Structure formats: C-alpha cells, structure tokens
C-alpha cells in the first residue's frame, strides 16, 4: 500500500492553504483529495467580494481568492484528485477513496489534514412548520444554482435566518431579477456581519425582521406564502403578530455545521460546542498525526482566518513528520461566562510558535463596552477591551505565552460587561 507523507481531505481554502504551507516547509509527498469537479471549495460559488483583506491586503471575490491558491498548487505541482470521494478514515490513517476512474482504493498516510468544511442546517433540522413544497431551500444551495448554474429558485423570495449567506443571497437574487421581501431572524440581533446588512439589505430596501420567525409555510406544489410572527424572549411566537407574505421561495440561512462524519469514523473527539474536532495549538486532534483546519474545525466568518489557521496546521504536519515531541501536558482552554467556544481547546506552551498563543472564540450574546478576561487556574492574567462583541463575529486573541508557561492547567476565557455608569 502506497504511504503518503500527508493526505489532505478537501480542496477548499483550508486544504489548499495547508498543502502549500506543507510544501513550502519541505514536505512534498502530498495528495489533496477533492470530491467536487474542481478545486476551490465553497469559494467558487461565493462570487461576492470582501475576501482577502488580511491575507492579500486587497479586496477579492471568493473565486479570485481561491484562484490564487489553486494557481500556487498548480505551480508547485502538488498532486490532487478531483471527483474523488473519501468514504472512510481509520485511526491507523488508512483512507478509503473512490472515483469512477481509479475505482475503490485504500491509501495510507503518515499524516492527515481534515479540511472537509461544513454543511448547512436544513428545514428539517429546525422543524419548519407547514407543508413541504418545492422552494424551501438552504441559501447555499440556492447560491450554487444561481452562481454556478444560472437558475433562480424563486422570483418572490423570503429569507429565514440572517446568516451571511442569506444576506449575500438577498443582494444576489435582487440583482439577478428577483424580489426579496424580507429577512427574518429569530434572535434579537443579526447572525451576519454588519457590513452585509448595510450593502445587501439597506442598499435594496429589504427589511430585516429581528425577533421574528416563519411560523408556517403554505403551498401545495410550490411555496405560495408564509406567516411571519414575532417571538418572545423564549423564541416562542407571540399570538396576534402574524404577517402574511406571498412568496414562491423561502431561503434558509440558519446556521452551518462542521462536516465531521469522517472524523468520527477515525475516533476523533468532537467538541460539543464547535461540532468540530478538539485540537491543540498545532490544530492536531486527539489522534496523533491527524490535523484539522477551516470550517470542519469551527465555522469561520472570514476565509482569511481559515488560511492562517490552515498554514498553522500545515506546519504542525511538518513538525510531526520531523519527529518533534510535545513535552508539556498542556493547558486546557474553557469557555467562561458569555463565551460559546474557544479554539484551540488545548495549548502546549513548549510547542507554541513565536511569542503568542493565538486563540479564537465566539461570544454567546451581543456585548457593548465589554472586556474579555483570561484566567489561568482561576487567576486573571490578561484582559482585552472590546467596544463591541457579537456571536456573528469571531474574536481573535493573542496571549503572550510567558503568561501561560506551565505544564498543565486551565485557561478560562470569559466576557465581562462594563457596569452601567
């Protein structure tokens, strides 16, 4: 059985960035596996701009951002297989793959990078009440149809959920000739970035209904209408607030879920909050030599951070192949008050590159004039002031590693809101 130094599962932004970094660090026996007909992953259908400000210091569209990495992979002649599905991964690092040209094969790898991305939450998952006609569709699938194939799934559209894909699709469908009647968000704040509310909704006078949900979908063959209702603080619809809309499609932008069925088959521990693997400072999972990065690890709002995280995973792969050993037991990161998750979940100070430990987190709520407090075994070691925190916006913190230079312990991250006056 052919054994690769590293096999990367997924040829999207995470997989490509990891591949290039691994190559640049001197390991060239790489194979990228991609199930789609081309490299680039979800970026190929994210044709809007707003990518690359951190990574390239210029504003790019999704396909342009992907193209830079694809061109690099081609230039370095890093091998990849497209139209290839990974069916199984074992903890012994055997990878079962299949495509119509080579048939069914089992490959072996010294290291694996999991970069499978995420999937959308569906109407089924949120138990949307009403009938099940055509026209109820996740925003990402509607985006694929519109941007890759050139089809509109509706001409009078409503969007449930204010995630970024939903907001972006409100603008895209409007520009391509549909009317978007509104966006409903069950929470009192938006799930997407503020700039997207401005340029995708305000620009086209599309109303955003916060604390509202779709209480009923109507229509036999195709969606014919829906009932929108305001919800109370327990997210239960309030009687008497019904508003009727005549629409032919309902797009859902109600969340993304890391796609980890393969990871689970390799006995990789999955974090309850991120729905992604539990990783250390090198993005290495509990199975030595298997790394994870990008949206399979936790859902990002900026691809630039995916690229940075994936390079870190790439360097982790090379260091593992070079036989570097971890000496410390590690500091565990935990979510304190107001924090929904922290990645990575484990930090081995002796393994951290450079001066800083980098952690990413999301908050559970919107906070103003808050501070993020870092405690090591209960003792406050650092605070970060933040004028504005929101669940939709991932926070990135750098903690001087000297502050956490212990063999093992617990690093908690919490949000403290400034007391009113």
């Amino acid at each position: 059985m052919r054994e690769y130094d590293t096999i990367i599962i997924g040829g999207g932004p995470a997989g490509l960035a990891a591949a290039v970094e691994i190559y640049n660090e001197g390991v060239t026996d790489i194979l990228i596996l991609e199930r789609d007909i081309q490299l680039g992953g979800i970026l190929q259908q994210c044709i809007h701009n707003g990518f690359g400000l951190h990574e390239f210091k210029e504003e790019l569209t999704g396909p342009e951002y992907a193209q830079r990495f694809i061109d690099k992979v081609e230039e370095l002649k890093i091998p990849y297989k497209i139209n290839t599905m990974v069916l199984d991964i074992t903890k012994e690092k055997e990878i079962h793959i299949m495509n119509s040209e080579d048939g069914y094969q089992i490959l072996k790898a010294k290291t694996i990078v999991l970069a499978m991305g995420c999937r959308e939450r569906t109407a089924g998952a949120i138990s949307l009440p009403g009938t099940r006609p055509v026209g109820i569709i996740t925003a990402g699938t509607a985006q694929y149809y519109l941007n890759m194939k050139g089809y509109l799934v509706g001409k009078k559209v409503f969007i449930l959920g204010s995630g970024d894909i939903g907001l972006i699709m409100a603008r895209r469908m409007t520009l391509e000739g549909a009317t978007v009647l509104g966006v409903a968000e069950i929470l009192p704040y938006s799930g997407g970035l503020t700039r997207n509310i401005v340029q995708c909704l305000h620009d086209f006078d599309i109303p955003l209904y916060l604390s509202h949900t779709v209480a009923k979908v109507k229509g036999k063959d195709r969606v014919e209408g829906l009932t929108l209702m305001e919800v109370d603080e327990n997210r239960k619809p309030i009687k008497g607030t019904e508003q009727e809309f005549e629409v032919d499609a309902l797009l859902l932008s109600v969340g993304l879920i890391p796609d980890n069925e393969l990871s689970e088959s390799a006995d990789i521990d999955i974090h309850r909050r991120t729905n992604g693997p539990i990783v250390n400072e090198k993005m290495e999972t509990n199975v030595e030599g298997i790394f994870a990065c990008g949206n399979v690890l936790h859902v990002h709002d900026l691809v630039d951070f995916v690229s940075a995280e994936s390079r870190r995973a790439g360097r982790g792969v090379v260091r593992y192949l070079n036989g570097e050993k971890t000496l410390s037991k590690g500091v565990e990161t935990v979510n304190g008050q107001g924090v929904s998750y922290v990645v990575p979940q484990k930090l081995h100070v002796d393994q951290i590159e450079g001066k800083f430990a980098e952690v990413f987190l999301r908050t559970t709520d919107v906070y103003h004039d808050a501070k993020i407090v870092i405690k090591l075994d209960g003792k406050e070691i650092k605070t970060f002031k933040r004028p504005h925190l929101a669940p939709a916006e991932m926070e990135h913190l750098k903690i001087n590693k000297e502050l956490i230079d212990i063999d093992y312990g617990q690093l908690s991250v919490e949000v403290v809101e400034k007391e009113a006056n």
Partner: protein
Amino acid sequence: MKEWDVVCIVCPKGCRMKVTEENNDMKVSGNQCKRGLTYGVKEVTNPTRVITSTVKVNHPIHRRMPVVTKGAVPKGMMLDVMKEINLIELELPIMVGDMIIGDVLGTGINIVASRTIK
C-alpha cells in the same frame, strides 16, 4: 449643519460612523481607521458599490463565469450595469482578470473575470 449615520462597509468590522458637513467641511467620527474616513465622505457625496455577478458561458458544465467590477460604480447605476452584464455570452477558456466589459457605461470601470476556467 448636515449629519449622516453611516455604517462602514470597507472591512468586516462595520464601524458605526457619523459624518457631518458644516461650511463645506466634511468630518467623520466613529471610524477606527483611515479607510473609514474616505468611505464616510464618499458614501454621503457619491456612494459607489462593487458589483459581482456572472455572465453566460457556452459550456455544458461551466454555465456561468463569475465577474466583478474592478473598482466601484455609482450605486444608482447598479441595475444598469447588470443589464450590460446580462447581455454577454463567453466561450472558454477564460483566465482570471480577463477583461469582459471595458469602461462599462462610461464609468471608467472595467468588468473582469474573477476565476480561470480552461
């Protein structure tokens, strides 16, 4: 004195800014960087937007080529620019950055391909 509330869309931070005009003097507050300053003034004097869309490709699998305006066009012209984009049909191969429409509607802005399809 005139006053506008503007949310900056230059980067994902989304700074909430106040733009004021007094005696032809424009002031911006609430921005966290220099780019917000420029954006704030522009948004209340001559708002512009980058447009991203697709054009038809004569190919059974790759039916659409994503395109982008290289630079922003006046916000009020968005739908007119879309009409121009909707007229085009392309043959492959096309490389990222290839010109699709030059100086669209006299705006001085080019529309280019945003990926490579060989």
